[in-house]
């Protein structure tokens, strides 16, 4: 039986069903690309070796039915292979390793954050989610009770100014017309932390390092642009644009910082003024066991070496975003890098201190660092025609800022004291037009949070030990799959360039 007999039989069958609109079928029965049609023929040939002469009728029928079904639906197990290669490249491929992975369930796969809102190191969250998923853990907000946590204040104030009480261009203000969103935000979120038994320490930025001035100037000019566009948008009455642009014009001023410091001191919450960068100071406090973790949205904190770094701690409870905890030691372990190499990786990804090499994103940077070990060696080996290295590229200076930032540990002992009721009422209600009832209630909350005796943690009594039993095959499989996935990705990334 040659394949043409199968074809004609197939054709007859179909005609019998659709005699009326045969023409349509003729057109519709070959919707597949030519390559698939070839494979149909080869499939038929493969399925009809000489031995088929003696085949039973049942098998013939089965083959026919199968072919019919395949022609009608256009779906077959073969179809995927017959697609031109590269057809399914792109987003889908990225997850394929997850589907092909063994049956083992994964606990809480870390969610990659949107890249757009990344601060500090560009694309680092995604890079870590792809390459060091074990270094990220989702934690409940409540699980940080009793912990001292250093909060990057400037970052929080900036967020409050953008989000709290804003509709279009209007923000919360006091009688004098000064913005009070930052106070509202700082007051409420700090109370939320205190109520959860968390002990926050707010760290404020000092003088920015010289290198950051470039970045700051860029931000300044962006803000200028946004301000211009905003006036245009207001003239045109474009509401969405107003909403978007007015957020971009937000700037944290010295006044905002001073207001918040005053508020926090009145609330009995310790404030630390960093000599230079707040993230660096936070990281230093954490490294020296003054605090348990650092909370910021700025991925810089990891580059500064904060052993534990939390994102989304200061997000409003209404958003229901779990806190994401990063463990720097695990990051290094999973990426197979030293801290110095990780800092170089961050500089290559793009940091606040200097430009990065155009065309080198996180994935390529990771590959290069793994291959060459340091920026110097990468520069020696990099194809200079393909990648343009910035003319004035102070990466060594940036590296120095990350490695030896200007920080101080000479700070007074961190103490959480009772709130100054009268002070708070006079500052918030009289000076800034807050509702007195609400403030009084909030003060009650602070006091009751303080009075509650706090729950101890087991780790303060028992110390972790290394478990002696080996997991049932676990390590080998997981390593293989992640490595294979990583290889695939780097290859794909390399080809694109």
């Amino acid at each position: 039986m040659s394949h043409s007999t199968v074809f004609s039989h197939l054709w007859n069958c179909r005609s019998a069903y659709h005699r009326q609109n045969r023409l349509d079928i003729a057109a519709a029965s070959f919707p597949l690309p030519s390559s698939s049609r070839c494979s149909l023929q080869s499939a038929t040939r493969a399925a009809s070796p000489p031995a088929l002469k003696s085949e039973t009728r049942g098998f013939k029928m089965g083959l026919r039915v199968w072919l019919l079904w395949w022609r009608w639906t256009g779906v077959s197990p073969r179809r995927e292979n017959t697609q031109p290669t590269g057809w399914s490249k792109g987003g889908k491929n990225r997850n394929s390793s997850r589907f092909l992975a063994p049956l083992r369930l994964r606990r809480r796969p870390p969610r990659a954050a949107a890249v757009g809102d990344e601060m500090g190191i560009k694309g680092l969250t995604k890079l870590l989610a792809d390459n060091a998923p074990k270094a990220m853990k989702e934690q409940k907000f409540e699980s940080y009770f009793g912990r001292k946590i250093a909060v990057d204040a400037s970052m929080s104030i900036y967020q409050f100014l953008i989000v709290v009480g804003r509709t279009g261009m209007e923000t919360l203000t006091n009688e004098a017309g000064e913005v009070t969103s930052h106070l509202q935000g700082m007051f409420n979120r700090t109370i939320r932390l205190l109520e959860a038994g968390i002990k926050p320490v707010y760290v404020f930025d000092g003088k920015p390092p010289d290198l950051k001035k470039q970045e700051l100037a860029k931000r300044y000019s962006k803000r200028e642009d946004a301000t211009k566009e905003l006036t245009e948008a207001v003239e045109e009455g474009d509401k969405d644009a107003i909403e978007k642009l007015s957020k971009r014009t937000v700037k944290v001023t010295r006044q905002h910082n001073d207001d918040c410091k005053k508020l926090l001191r009145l609330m009995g919450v310790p404030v630390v003024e960093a000599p230079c960068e707040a993230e660096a100071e936070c990281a230093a406090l954490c490294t020296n066991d003054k605090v348990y973790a650092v909370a910021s949205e700025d991925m810089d904190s990891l580059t500064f070496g904060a052993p534990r770094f939390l994102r989304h701690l200061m997000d409003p409870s209404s958003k229901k975003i779990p806190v994401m905890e990063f463990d720097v030691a695990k990051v290094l372990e999973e990426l197979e890098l030293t801290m110095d190499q990780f800092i170089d990786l961050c500089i290559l990804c793009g940091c606040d201190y200097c430009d990065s090499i155009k065309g080198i994103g996180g994935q390529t940077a990771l590959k290069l660092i793994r291959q060459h070990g340091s920026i110097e060696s990468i520069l020696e080996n990099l194809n200079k025609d393909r990648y343009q290295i910035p003319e004035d590229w102070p990466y060594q200076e940036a590296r120095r800022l990350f490695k030896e930032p200007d920080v101080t540990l000479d700070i007074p002992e961190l103490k959480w004291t009772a709130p100054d009721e009268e002070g708070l009422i006079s500052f918030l209600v009289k000076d800034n037009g807050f509702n007195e009832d609400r403030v009084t209630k909030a003060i009650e909350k602070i006091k009751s949070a303080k009075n509650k005796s706090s729950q101890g943690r087991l780790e303060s009594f028992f110390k972790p030990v290394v478990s002696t039993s080996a997991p049932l095959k676990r390590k080998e499989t997981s390593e293989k799959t992640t490595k294979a996935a990583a290889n695939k990705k780097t290859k794909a990334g390399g080809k694109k360039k």
Partner: protein
Amino acid sequence: MLELRLVQGSLLKKVLEAIRELVTDANFDCSGTGFSLQAMDSSHVALVALLLRAEGFEHYRCDRNLSMGMNLNNMAKMLRCAGNDDIITIKADDGSDTVTFMFESPKQDKIADFEMKLMDIDSEHLGIPDSEYQAIVRMPSAEFMRICKDLSSIGDTVIISVTKEGVKFSTSGEIGSANIVCRQNQTVDKPEEATVIEMQEPVSLTFALRYMNSFTKASSLSDQVTISLSSELPVVVEYKIAEMGYIRFYLAPKIEEDEEMKP
């Protein structure tokens, strides 16, 4: 290769019901000595330690030490399919991603195999030193369960104080306060109804009732519960599992605010 045959299968069901509320995922460790588990709750306040000794199993084969990560809710789903009189066998092959629970009916006329996927769990293992406790209270487990349940309708915390008089459980809440005192009582007909207090020093500690209540889920495993208290240590609530081992719950006390704590 792992093969553990437990004639009294209901025991495993009860163990699981006892810890399921506290911990969702845990690593079961198997070694030559027995089948054990150590896991903390998500907030690292309470810890459960389980030991089922090898001798307690009818057949115990464990070629090398290994740990199996399981989701306890999924495990409970499978064990719920076992009859109360069934013999349960836990099996796992080297290099496998799954564990198999085999249920045999007592008459051997029905055999069910349930295969469960394992998971990757990186959990911290805490070293728990053997220590002398200032006070050890042994009392009927049903009594302790009743006390915790009653007190939690009044307040969220319980103060457990042991003096020469006896052991006092007290709480207070918005609607009022409550005190329950249990005295030493060894003159009972049945030994499981006795209350025994061994005290070196008087001790008083505060605990969250929520956790205590979830510990009492283990009451079905043992008629008696042992509560060990020391002012410097978490409380230990222990239920002995007859001839097999124990299930111990550790709970960190509540601490007064003034004390300087670790970061």
